[in-house]
């Protein structure tokens, strides 16, 4: 009996989704810019997965006689050995940047996954249970919001030491509040809806209600937040790497290449600072453009005002 009602509820929720994808695709084509964003992100994702196969050289191999070569420099045989030049230790900048894509995307998506999972879980629990559980969770969120996020991150990383794991956890935990607040608010409003009441009266358990009624219905704003969040985590990672708090020495990241460019700047070795920054900006810009489009697409209020 309960199952039948839930299945129906599910079917109703799923039915429009088939055409939803088509509608998304059409809106994407119409907006144009997000397609460029998707293409850039696709390239970055490709580079981070197949980086080792694509990168022309070992990113950590030092060739001291060929240090600080400018981009597109031709050698004695007229060949371009280093398209983007080399750094102060004679390492190939192009290869280092291809490896760097991996860390940026990994840290960005992993941190948001952690923060999102934590925040959504706590937000739904707070909104669903209410009472003192709600109070405690939301007070902790208030306290965290009052903090200086970057400084707190710096402090934790100084004590724990650098490393991808620590970086992802610290940046992830820093994000949970936004998700928790939204998930809680949405849960409270959906919990009061008739169809939830109906499901409950049919004997659906809390777990079923959360999984089948609440979660699918609160996802859109959370997805929008997540896409902006990946962008800001990538920027934060770059800053932390620049401060020397990112990942270990032998792993190249865009932020770290920028940090290493510091010593070469006064000598006019511009390429070490220009290219990694452009890579970061393109990635983050793509995510922001996609986030903007997703918000317009998923936010029903804007949708109504447009058509």
């Amino acid at each position, binding site marked *: 009996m309960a199952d039948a009602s839930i299945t129906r509820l599910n079917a109703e929720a799923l039915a429009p989704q088939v055409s939803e994808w088509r509608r998304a695709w059409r809106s994407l084509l119409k907006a144009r810019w997000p397609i460029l964003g998707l293409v850039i992100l696709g390239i970055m994702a490709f580079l981070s997965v197949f980086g080792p196969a694509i990168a022309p050289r070992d990113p950590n191999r030092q060739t001291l006689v060929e240090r600080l070569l400018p981009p597109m420099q031709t050698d004695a045989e007229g060949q371009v050995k280093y398209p983007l030049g080399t750094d102060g230790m004679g390492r190939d900048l192009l290869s280092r940047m291809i490896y760097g894509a991996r860390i940026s995307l990994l840290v960005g998506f992993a941190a948001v996954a952690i923060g999102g999972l934590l925040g959504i879980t706590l937000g739904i629990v707070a909104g669903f249970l209410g009472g003192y559980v709600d109070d405690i969770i939301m007070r902790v969120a208030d306290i965290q919001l*009052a903090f200086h996020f*970057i400084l707190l991150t710096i*402090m934790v990383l100084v004590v724990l030491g650098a490393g991808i794991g620590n970086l992802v956890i610290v940046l992830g935990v820093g994000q949970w509040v936004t998700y928790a607040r939204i998930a809680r608010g949405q849960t409270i409003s959906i919990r009061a809806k008739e169809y939830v009441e109906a499901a409950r009266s049919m004997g659906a358990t809390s777990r079923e209600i959360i999984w089948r009624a609440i979660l699918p219905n609160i996802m859109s704003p959370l997805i929008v937040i997540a896409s902006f969040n990946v962008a800001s985590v990538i920027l934060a990672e770059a800053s932390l790497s620049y*401060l020397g708090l990112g990942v270990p020495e032998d792993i190249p990241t865009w932020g770290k290449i920028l940090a290493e460019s510091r010593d070469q*700047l006064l000598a006019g070795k511009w390429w070490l*600072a220009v290219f990694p920054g452009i890579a*970061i*900006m393109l990635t983050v*810009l793509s995510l922001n453009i996609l986030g903007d489009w997703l918000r317009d697409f998923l936010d029903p209020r804007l949708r109504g005002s447009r058509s």
Partner: protein
Amino acid sequence: MGKYIARRLAQSVIVLLGVTLLAFVTLHLAGDPTYLYVSERASEQEIIDTRARLGFDRPLPEQYLSFVVRMFQGDLGVSLRSRKPALEMVMERLPATLELTICAMLFSTLLAIPVGILCATRRGTPLDGGIMLLAMMGQSMPGFWLGIMLMLFVGLQLRWLPISGHEPVLEYFLRGDFARGLQNLPQAIPYLILPSITIGVFSLSRNARLVRSSMLEVLNQEYITTARSKGLTERNIIVRHAMKNAMLPVVTLLGLEFGFLLSGVVVTETVFSWPGVGRLVFNAITQRDIPVVQAAVVTFSFMFILLNLLVDIIYVQLDPRIRLS
């Protein structure tokens, strides 16, 4: 009103305690913090002595209590390098950081409002599109990278502005020596320009987009149509009728802005070798000088909390609707 302020004050005290607790917990995250204070070659006896001297052998609640008590006495430990009180080191550097933050805030707010209005009134034109694309880019690049680019092209290539250096102004003001501060001001400004742009560009982009969209929303409202039908000029409508309401969301953001800009300071000061708290923190990080990092984090958090409290109290005065909720 009094009740609201009292509640807000109580909240701030809880948050302050939360800050201290977190600062304390962080220090113990990696296990016994004694090892952060001794060199790697320290002997067993040295470690035991240090542990006893710093009180790390006592129970944690007791340690936390004495940590809080000492903190409210202004004692945040001594730098492991210079042996100077950590808080004093932070306070010495604070005026330079505030100078930069204030300039960045002026830059990002004062420019965002006219730019946002311009875009809203020219909606859909290439000018609007171009500026909004720039704003999108401004929100998508690491602030410090823009700093590096400005250094490279405006500083090193064109040689228009200095890439590092600092002339104290606020420090003299705070000491009460206004004549000296004002006298320094003309020399101080060239040094401030590039770092301020670097810190402020993200906020400028965000604020310009915000002003634009809130202006567009207001311009769609009926009272504006009424004003138009009365035959008022477009300029008159925008300046006298639309702007006031369009500025509300921007003003709401300004309080948070200051704290936000402060976080950009650490990296930017490093780029421009600015002698502020940020560079102090950076140096402390590379030397693993934990008390100094801790002192900076606690000081910034305190400032942040106090500022938010202040802003909230001012809002209640400005917007009576908040009082009711």
